[in-house]
């Protein structure tokens, strides 16, 4: 790769030492793949400490169970890069599961379309409110969290009815394995690729970064801010809905007690992945590493075994703090060099 070094004759830039650029590159790498590195270290430590940690089955379990969180986190990454936040995803997830299970009695198509339509519509509505009224996304989606949970309870008879999936094709969507990994995992991978291209390689993606970086500037640069924001929340709603539906397919039922507090896990995954909550920066590979890291931490805590349930919580809190502190330190080291 060629690097253009500031031309001293032009007098516009201070001369930069060649070493700086390389160090900057490394720093860049560390910052953007900090989560990946922390993940690698954690897995390594786990492998050394526990025999049963690196068995293929355990690895597959972690990947499969992380995939639902990961799908939701893709949407959340979009929202957070745009400078917003979506607290409603947990409720979307559980509502979608109930709707998918209910819809499955009318066939595969309804089982998929019903939750996607409803969650997409609510995502759209939230996006419209955020973009049009300028209300804080935190509050709008907090209302979404409450409202959708209410809707879920209403649909399921105050939580008393658990609909069972009654469509083989739909169940297969959640349970069939290809090359050792279930369909949702492959869907996750596909979505990451698609989302990555959307973010990095399309005008729409660039607009998201611009809005998150400075909404005022984006408006003045002619970015269709309202439309982009609406679409971002729509995407988040759709992906949370999709994840919920796939999860229902995996569990073969519309479980009503899921999803509480899921939004916080999802946000944690995104932020551990290096996406800034202030918006304008971040990406999907980090998010995926963040989602996996959460799964790995859980698994490690289980491996330790002797911890009481309360102590498990202390450890996972400490772990979370450790991860973000490590990331900050890496980030700082890069800036200082």
């Amino acid at each position: 790769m060629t690097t253009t070094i500031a031309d001293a004759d032009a007098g516009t830039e201070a001369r930069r030492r060649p070493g700086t650029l390389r160090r900057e590159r490394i720093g860049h790498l560390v910052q953007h793949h900090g989560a990946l590195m922390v993940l690698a270290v954690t897995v390594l430590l786990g492998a050394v400490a526990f025999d049963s940690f690196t068995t293929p089955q355990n690895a597959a379990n972690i990947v499969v169970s992380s995939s639902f969180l990961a799908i939701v986190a893709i949407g959340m990454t979009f929202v957070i890069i745009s400078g917003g936040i979506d607290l409603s995803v947990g409720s979307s997830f559980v509502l979608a599961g109930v709707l998918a299970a209910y819809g499955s009695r009318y066939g595969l198509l309804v089982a998929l379309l019903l939750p996607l339509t409803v969650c997409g519509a609510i995502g759209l509505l939230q996006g419209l409110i955020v973009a049009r009224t300028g209300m804080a996304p935190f509050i709008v989606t907090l209302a979404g969290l409450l409202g959708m949970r209410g809707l879920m309870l209403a649909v399921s008879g105050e939580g008393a009815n658990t609909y069972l999936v009654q469509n083989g094709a739909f169940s297969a969507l959640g349970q069939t394995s290809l090359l050792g990994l279930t369909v949702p995992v492959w869907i996750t991978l596909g979505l990451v690729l698609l989302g990555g291209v959307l973010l990095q390689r399309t005008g729409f993606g660039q607009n998201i970064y611009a809005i998150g970086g400075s909404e005022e500037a984006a408006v003045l640069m002619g970015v269709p801010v309202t439309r982009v924001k609406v679409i971002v929340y729509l995407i988040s709603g759709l992906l949370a809905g999709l994840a919920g539906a796939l999860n229902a397919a995996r569990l073969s039922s519309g479980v009503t007690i899921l999803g509480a507090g899921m939004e916080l896990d999802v946000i944690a995954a995104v932020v551990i992945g290096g996406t800034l909550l202030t918006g304008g920066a971040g990406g999907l590979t980090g998010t995926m590493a963040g989602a996996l890291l959460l799964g790995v931490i859980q698994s490690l805590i289980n491996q330790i075994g002797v911890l009481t349930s309360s102590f498990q919580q202390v450890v996972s809190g400490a772990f979370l703090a450790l991860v973000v502190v490590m990331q900050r330190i890496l980030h700082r080291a890069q800036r200082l060099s």
Partner: protein
Amino acid sequence: MATAVLEARGISKGFPGVLALDDVSFRLDAGQVHALVGENGAGKSTLIKVITGVYRPDRGTLLLRDEPVTFDHPLAAQRAGISTIYQEVNLVPQMSLAHNLLLGREPRSRLGVIDTTQLYAEAERVMTRYGIRTDVRRPLRSFGMGTQQMVALARAVSIEARVVIMDEPTSALEPREVDTLFGVIADLRSEGISVIYVSHRLDELYRICDRVTVLRDGRVAHDGPLDELARVELVARMLGRDPAEIRRDGATRFTGEHTTTAGEPLVEARSVSRRPVLRDVSVQVRPGEVVGLGGLLGAGRSETAKAIAGALPVDAGTVTVAGQQVRRGSPAAAIRAGVSLVPEDRKAEGIVPTLSVRDNIALAALPQLSRSGVVSDARIDRIVDSFMRRLRIKAASPYQKVSELSGGNQQKVLLARSLATGAKVLLLDEPTRGIDVGAKAEVQALIDELAAEGLGVLLISSDLEELVEGADRVVVLRDGAVAGELSGDQVTEEAIMATIAATGETDG
């Protein structure tokens, strides 16, 4: 008469407590460069924002080639062929220079996705045309204000436009870049594209503008061809004063003579270094002295000031105030020692937009204005009142939000904030940038006055005239190192330019 490219008829626009535009009419002809001038807060930026759909006018109509139009979004104006550089640089700091430059017009590959290789190549090509060769992948915020301004300019011009509006495009540019800009404007004019040009620098107006509209207090005070209007007349129209009075006062308000006590320097930076922007910079300021800091964009002037103010950690070197070494990296310590910085980027580092004018002025001096942690409103009122009067800050009331003031008045608020701390040394980074002629003169007079009172001033300015007339001594920086120092009769525009241009023999 040919049809106007753009016309505004009877535009009024009010903000809480202020009528920013009052029945303003404005007409732009094809291929003309039309100056829009007026004091700070006269309503220039507001008019531009109304024209480009950022604000909806309360009354009045907008016509584009005689067709009535309403833009309810800047995008709509852009689509109609109106391209704008807004006053405060409005780009996305975290995005790369290239992405900022080409946002919305990124080159696509055959698959329809953005072709990044081509994107960077294209951006490099464009920037080279504007005399800037640099790594366009770096985030925009890592560039100086000048470069950022050039990006905004290149961006605005490269959009297919019939009208290009420039709100104070040169305030962050140095002479060479201004020349580049004027070359661009000349090209535009020859292509029949119209330009609305806002600036407080009168020389520039006379160099390139055909017509001028003067705004005063939200109303049109004058409209006509520029070459028929003498300089003093123009200033008189802007200020609403008698031309004869203006004629007496001269170009800048500096008297040029300070009685510098030869004694101990008030502040002294010794061999300050910070990779990669500063190398071995030494500057000292004595009481009653105005020391100019000259150099091109990115020469490291702002960094020097920040290093002295404790806002930038340094790798090597020391800063002493009145013989006492200042603890590194703490603006608080610097302020306590009597050194106060008025930063260059007032939006990002200066004002606190959510607070009132009053709270902004009192901010840095709070410890002095309170007793055991409880603020004294009486004392704040007194100090705010006196500074608002002394600096003639135009605000509806001290309780108006500072973000609602015009750029020039915001600058004065920051100056007041520094002065309120009772600083012995002021570090002024482009203190007259974006300030109208009247206010500029006031600020300059104030600098003189402060120096006369025994304060030391470090003055950073891209306006050579200002440096020459205002400073007793000028330290010239190049590439983050001192390239030379001029004092006494040596301080001339030519000498400064020569020092800047001298090939690196001073580098050793």
